[in-house]
């Protein structure tokens, strides 16, 4: 796949040891991993496998004990808090398991939040936020507060928020962890579509093998070590999961279209 030739995230010799009292707990032993541009990479593992630690370190939220993480060639473990904040602002989007929307703000304000930090003018960022809300299918929920929305809807706002700044990389920490199966499929589908549109890289951490079905690359992790890395041809995912899902939908537009065709 020529498309995936450029390495966006490169993890080398990563090790993380937590010190709890006098005891050392090894969360990650020795991780080496390359993730390419446009890849949807799923880090699959049970709880306690170290998958969340890996994600946090790749997002610059935690410092490794050893090893290095290069994102677009920059070693993020060497950055200080200030630099990391700036780096995240420009290059990284984040999707949380528990959505983490700001409860006082409406959907549109939540989505526009990352743009505020970049200093984008209000009119522009609202337009942008509306566009992304439409893309996740919430065109009719602009002014709803998080408490007025279902879990699936909240997560879709979360996805819009992660993608609104067109970051190169989006990290998702158990994005479907709080959702039922049907909603999970919806959410995965949206994430897949959004990432493909602008050739963005997604790193998803999950314990759910079903989520992994949407990935181009699945990294199985257990007890702080990578067990196996499984690459899938891109078309495979589309043919197997995306296309049938999309074909199962008949929208109102489809009906009018079909009706006008029949007449």
């Amino acid at each position, binding site marked *: 796949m020529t498309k995936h030739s450029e390495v966006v995230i490169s993890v080398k010799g990563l090790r993380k040891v937590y010190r709890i009292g006098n005891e050392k707990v090894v969360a990650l032993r020795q991780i080496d991993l390359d993730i390419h541009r446009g890849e949807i990479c799923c880090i699959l593992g049970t709880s306690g496998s170290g998958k969340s630690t890996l994600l*946090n370190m790749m*997002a610059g*939220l*935690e410092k490794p004990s050893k090893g290095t993480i290069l994102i677009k060639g920059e070693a993020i473990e060497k950055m200080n*808090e*200030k630099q990391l*904040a*700036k780096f*995240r*602002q420009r290059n*990284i*989007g*984040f999707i*949380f398991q*528990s959505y*983490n929307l*700001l409860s*006082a703000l409406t959907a549109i304000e939540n989505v526009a*939040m*990352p743009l*505020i*930090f*970049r*200093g984008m003018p*209000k009119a522009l960022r609202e337009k942008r936020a509306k566009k992304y809300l439409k893309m996740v299918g919430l065109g009719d929920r602009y002014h709803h507060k998080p408490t007025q929305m279902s879990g699936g809807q909240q997560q879709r706002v979360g996805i819009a*928020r*992660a993608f609104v*700044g067109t970051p190169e990389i989006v990290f998702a920490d158990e994005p479907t962890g709080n959702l039922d199966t049907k909603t999970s499929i919806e959410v995965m589908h949206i994430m897949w579509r959004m990432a493909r549109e602008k050739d963005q890289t997604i790193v998803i951490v999950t314990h759910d093998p079903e989520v992994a079905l949407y990935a181009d690359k699945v990294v199985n992790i257990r007890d702080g070590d990578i067990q196996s890395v499984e690459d899938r041809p891109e078309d495979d995912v589309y043919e197997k999961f995306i296309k049938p899902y999309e074909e199962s939908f008949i929208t109102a537009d489809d009906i009018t279209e079909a009706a006008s065709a029949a007449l």
Partner: protein
Amino acid sequence: MNSLELALMGIKNLLRRKARTILTVLGVIIGTASIVVMVSLGLGMNKAFEQQLEEYGSLTMIEVYNNRGGGYMVMSDSGESSSVPEGEVAFNDETISAFENIEHVEFALGMKRFDGTLYAGKLQSWAGIMAVDLEKFKKLDIDLSEGTMPSADGVNEVLMGFQVSQNFYDPNSRNPYSNQSSVDVMNTKLEIVPSSSYYDGKRPKGFVITPTGLTSDQDWDYAWDIYIDYDVFTKLKADFDRRNKSNDDNNNGGRKRSRSNEDQDKYDQMKISVDDVKYVQEVQEQVKAMGYEAYSLTDALENMKQTSGLIQAVLGGIGAVSLFVAAIGITNTMVMSIYERTKEIGVMKVIGAELKDIKRLFLFEAAMIGFFGGVFGVIISYGISFLINSVLSGMSQGGGYYGVGFLSDIPYWLALLGIAFSTFIGLAAGYYPAVRATRLSALEAIRTE
């Protein structure tokens, strides 16, 4: 993140927790109001002092006395005796020129006081007669209630101190001194005898004077004497002394002595007018260095300023305590707010907030609490100040000529300073919470479920 967005977000955050914000602001209001009111009392006191002093006389005047007069040496402040040897300090027209040569001196006026008795029909009164250079005397800022300043040209023209006109008594009544009565000096024929000696039965013939003006009853500096031209008076006095020589025997010795010193002791008191209050002390020091005794109201003003400065500091300190308590309140509110918003702060950090955004947000919120507390505090201070002035000054209405119209004074700079200070206090109180918010681990924050 631009400042406007930040401000909007901050205000939204404050409004989200209305009750707590209002309570915290209330603390700042009380703190600001107490400082502003306390300081305003001090300022009002200062203003009252100055007004009071101005009633006593001009602040730019220095009174000079010849320290030789009593035959004793005045010790200087350091305890050493004055460098000018006794008997060598003259008090005459040369002295006046010497004073007028000092920088910032507008003019110096020489005066000599004589005792006299004033007769208005059958009433009489003791009166001091001040012989002055009327040309310079006119330059003094003397308030008149009626008439004009006298001149050397008319027939014995004089200026009457208002107290002189009120102290007449009838020497033939049974109880002469308890029945003092005032005389309309401007419209009564007045005769003066330039001697305080008691004349048994027949009084000597004095000379008629023409009062041209009466001093205002607000001006206590010139209240007690009659002012007349120096040359005019000395001539009258010489005439009188010649005519009444036999009656004045007991005064002869003294007069002889003064005659021998006449040139040296032409005056017994001088007034120096200084062009600006701020040079008064400086000129006064120089005059003292020349061997004279000098007094000015700025001495009193300095003392009063020191006293009121101390009182202001104490009052301000009391106010500061309550603002300090309010500042702790702000810090407490902001720290509480951080605990509540831990997750929110973490999420903001993860989705792209920079550290300075978070810091500024918290600083802004704290400063807003301070600012609004300051604004309302100042508004309330004006109310309290108004109440103090209307209630307390109403109570002191009977307090004679001390009756000052205000006790509390809030100039606009104090209002602005109050708001600026409370905003600054807010900022300072918010600094620790703001730094704490930036130090919050984003990871810990988003883990908090």
